[in-house]
């Protein structure tokens, strides 16, 4: 009889230890998920991180952060021409409203641009300096101005204020073509579907 009790005790201990092990694992998983959750940014920050930060204001807001706030309050996500389709795709992921194309009222998608001042024509009016959202134009009153090219987002806000039209938007040198490309799946019969995923 005693042996039988021992057996039961043994079984109980075994079951309990298995249970404790599993519970511990579950707690670890919970901790991990909690950390992930805590690491998440606020909604506006997250939307803002998807916007291209050109601060061009073509969306109708004064900069990318105000537009991000507007999106979080339910504004349309297709108002950002510098970001173009890639930005919309990221935002679609986020706000769960698929099927938006870029709204042409706000402009068309363009390759990256940069402003350049034709310096001999500049009269030093400082209007572009006031218009630049990034303080990327150097110069003083009645002195020649110039654009810090590395800081210029190509937002074109300085073009309109210039009284003498001496600012040009130029294409940035095209980025180097990709060297390594993801291989194409070859077993599609008509190559209509690109990948299996």
């Amino acid at each position, binding site marked *: 009889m005693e042996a039988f009790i021992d057996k039961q005790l043994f079984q109980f201990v075994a079951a309990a230890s298995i249970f404790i092990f599993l519970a511990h694992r579950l707690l670890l998983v919970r901790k991990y998920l909690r950390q992930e959750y805590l690491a998440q940014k606020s909604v506006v920050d997250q939307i803002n991180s998807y916007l291209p930060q050109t601060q061009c204001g073509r969306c109708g807001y004064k900069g990318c952060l105000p537009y991000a706030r507007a999106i979080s309050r339910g504004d349309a996500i297709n108002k950002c021409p510098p970001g173009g389709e890639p930005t919309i795709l990221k935002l679609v992921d986020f706000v769960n409203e698929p099927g938006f194309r870029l709204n042409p009222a706000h402009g068309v998608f363009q390759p990256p641009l940069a402003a350049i001042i034709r310096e001999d024509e500049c009269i030093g009016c400082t209007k572009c300096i006031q218009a630049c959202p990034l303080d990327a134009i150097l110069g003083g009153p009645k002195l020649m101005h110039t654009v810090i090219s590395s800081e210029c987002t190509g937002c074109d806000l300085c073009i309109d204020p210039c009284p003498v039209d001496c600012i040009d938007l130029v294409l940035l040198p095209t980025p180097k073509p990709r060297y390594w490309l993801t291989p194409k799946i070859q077993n599609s*019969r008509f190559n209509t579907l690109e990948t*299996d995923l």
Partner: protein
Amino acid sequence: MTSSPQSSPFQHARHSTNNIMLMVVAACIPGISISTWYFGYGILVNVLLSIAFALSFEAAAVSLRERHIQAILADNSALVAAVLFGLAIPPGSPWWIPFLGMGFAILIAKHIYGGLGQNPFNPAMCGYLFLLLCFPLEMTSWHIPSDALSDVQEFAPISLSGLQQSLQLSFPFLNLSTFSSNELIDGLAMATPLIESKLAGTSKLLAAWQTDQSMFSRSSETAWELVNIGYFFGGCFLLLQRIISWHIPAAVIATVLTLSILFYSPGGYTIYGTPYLHLFGSATMIGAFFIATDPVSAATTSKGKLVYGMIIGLSIYSVRVWGNYLDSIAIAVLLGNFSAPLLDHFLRPRIYGHKKGVAGPAGKGSDGDLGMDS
């Protein structure tokens, strides 16, 4: 610059997916032959029917998905699923059992998800479970020719009349055998010894298990023992060929063995069964070596594989002993499949030069906020 250059390496090892799948089928052959020897042609008919249906469904699905039919059929993955499914369903099942099962397995469990490599669950076991839920009666009665059950020394199951009976059972509309199919079903339903022990709730069968019996006597107990040994050797062949790794089968077998030793009490409850019965009295071996190791739906890291095997072993034992379903491999494997992505995510090996398996996520936190706006 028009295209990307071809990347190194320029040499390749001899393994190919097509061959791996063929090897798995080859490793099943000992088990299949022993099963056929004992349970008659029903097993073989099942396997062949499943293969035929599986390949047709695969071809149909592939052509719907606009892929190369020949190239995808050549990867033999449908073949493996069909063989495993054919071995799982009871011999003597009517033809529509493999038809529906393979249809579900190939079309829904496999191609709906994107074909080979994308299916989260083992297709063969999905098909099996689908049938088990829909047709419990057909899926739990094992029909073997009448001579086999009694300890008669004639080898009726593999005689011509046995073949006739098997075909009659599979295709009830044919009139091949002198027996009517009803007659066969009435007299010849049986299950694995494990199930019998569970249903009977007595130690009669266990007693029979412990008595000396010659290896080739036609009792269902020794039959299952030998079938399992056949699958065990098939599995060892796969291990030696390095097609499967030892982690999953070892974990499954070790867990089942440990649990059955823990809970086995000779005088007490018989539903627990002996450890030997658990390992060799049912489908444990084919489950551990062939079904649980299906690479697509299993965990892939070594630690993950061990835990995956343990989960399957635990589920096999639990469902068998405390659950309502009679055989548990399919349920256990699907439960394991559920856990596999999570295991792969959490149980990664430690990367060279890192303290953990997880390399730091890029750009976490630092957002460059000056705190000046708003």
